[in-house]
């Protein structure tokens, strides 16, 4: 029985259109034109307990809307959704006590008070028994290493520090599911790595299901085994990240430098070869021919000075995917 299941969820928004031109503005003062946008179009998927799923798509695709539906703050117009046996928007109080949400651009901490006071308030809001709260808080604070920040008012923290505290705040009440909406946006490299480490551990050790919306592909690569792609409100891909890579970036590439310029030679398994002077770029399909075979072939046939197997540029892949899917 899946922990989270969505079935044909649809949501349409009405958006007002501003009329152009001078006359338009005066007309707009009297009459309004509305446009319907289908934010979610029959979205269905299932997520099992303990999974770490990435949810990607271009801006405006419907990621935030899906998260809002799943957290129960938005009511869809059709479709069914069941999370831990409940319908999120119908059973708000019980549902939200079991989930945690982190919004990358909005903080849930109280601005003018020390971090610790915020945590204390959350303890009361979620009705956490004092000793359990203390234990959990200490554990989280140690892991995230924010002990020195506890007495600082939130408004004085840097973005990275604030995000760490946000995540701790979201996990204080031991939720079974954690939604993260662009958590690494604006963070520096060190903070990003720390956050990813933390999320991974939390997922492995406590079995917290996590759904991560992000534009940063490195997040996805580091954390998620499963990825869902949404575009124009439709679910376009739902499966392993490897599968996504294979579908949209089937070719991999090897750069090599030879001792002296050699004319083009055929390499078995190569799909395309570019040679400029002593620099070689060889494309191949890793499904058909594993990388090591290409390398061996090239080493045999060419006087190699240097050789590099290039990792797929996932951002380029995603861009290509969006183009191909017409997003």
């Amino acid at each position, binding site marked *: 029985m899946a922990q989270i299941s969505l079935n044909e969820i649809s949501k349409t928004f009405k958006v007002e259109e501003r009329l152009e031109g001078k006359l338009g503005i005066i007309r707009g003062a009297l009459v309004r034109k509305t446009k319907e946008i289908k934010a979610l179009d029959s979205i269905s998927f299932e997520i099992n307990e303990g999974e770490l799923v990435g949810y990607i798509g271009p801006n405006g695709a419907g990621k935030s809307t899906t998260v809002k539906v799943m957290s129960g703050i938005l009511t869809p117009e059709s479709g069914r959704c069941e999370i831990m046996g409940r319908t999120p928007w119908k059973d708000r*109080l019980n549902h939200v006590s079991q989930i945690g949400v982190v919004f990358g651009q909005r903080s849930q901490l109280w601005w003018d008070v020390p971090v610790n006071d915020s945590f204390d308030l959350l303890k009361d*809001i979620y009705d956490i028994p004092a000793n359990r709260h203390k234990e959990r808080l200490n554990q989280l604070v140690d892991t995230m290493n924010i002990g020195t920040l506890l007495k600082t008012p939130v408004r004085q923290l840097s973005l990275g520090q604030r995000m760490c505290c946000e995540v701790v705040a979201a996990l204080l009440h031991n939720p079974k599911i954690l939604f993260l909406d662009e958590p690494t946006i604006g963070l520096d490299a060190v903070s990003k790595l720390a956050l990813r480490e933390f999320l991974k551990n939390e997922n492995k050790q406590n079995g917290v299901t996590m759904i991560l919306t992000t534009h940063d592909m490195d997040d996805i690569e580091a954390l998620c085994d499963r990825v869902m792609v949404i575009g124009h409100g439709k679910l376009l891909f739902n499966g392993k990240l490897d599968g996504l890579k294979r579908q949209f970036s089937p070719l991999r590439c090897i750069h090599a430098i030879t001792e002296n310029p050699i004319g083009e030679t055929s390499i078995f398994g190569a799909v395309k070869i570019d040679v400029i002077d002593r620099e070689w770029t060889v494309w191949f399909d890793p499904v058909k021919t594993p990388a090591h075979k290409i390398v061996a072939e090239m080493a045999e046939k060419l006087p190699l000075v240097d050789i590099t197997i290039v990792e797929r540029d996932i951002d380029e892949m995603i861009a290509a995917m969006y183009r191909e899917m017409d997003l």
Partner: protein
Amino acid sequence: MFKDLKLYCKYIKMHILSGLEYKGWWMMCIQTIFIVITDPIAAVLMFSRFGGVGVWTMERILLIYSLAVTSFGLAESFCRGFDYFPWKMIQSGDFDRLLLRPRSLFIQVAGSYFHIHRLPRVLTGICVIIWAVYRLHIPFSILNLTILLLALIGGFLTYTGVFVMTSGIAFFTVKGLDWIYIFTNASYNVTRCPIDYLPKILWGVFTFFMPMFVISYYPAAAICGWGEPLITGFLALPAGIAFLGFSLIIWRIGVRHYKSTGS
């Protein structure tokens, strides 16, 4: 229920502490006192020039006026979160966060704002009430004090209701909300007009729709013996409850609308 109240008290404590950290808080108190004085200044000056209107002396009008103002001040102090709600929470999207907490939305919004500088209004109001009762030679009997207390509680509920209604409507439109001012700051100014001479329609609106007179004039009439049936003096509390109940319905409709259209 009690857990919610405990949470509310915690919110208030937090706001007070962080409010006191802000250096200008005493200045804001002075500001409030200034406003409290300038509001009825027109009435006071009018009375000093014209003497009075029939039996309506300055003390009478000020008694009614201060009952209304004190109730307003109480609601303003303890539930102003609702008044700031449209502009602070909805526009910034922070309401989503409230929906994500397993707590009553009402308590969360009510506790979302508190600043100590609202209290001077309440304190000055109470002082004026006491002064007016004394000047009108009305005894501070148990009965009278009960009526006054009920009036203030009922008034607090009424004005809280106005704030709650404002927030409920704010879910539908924020820009066109200024008219609610009629029921907040403008409402207690209606008491400046001697009620016998007030156009009937205003009396009707402020008795049967937003029971401002029920929480100010009628209790005053009851303790001073101005010819109204005694029972009307006790209607403040039920009227307040009824009006708040009505506002909560509007609030709930607003929340439901928000949940289906998002932010």
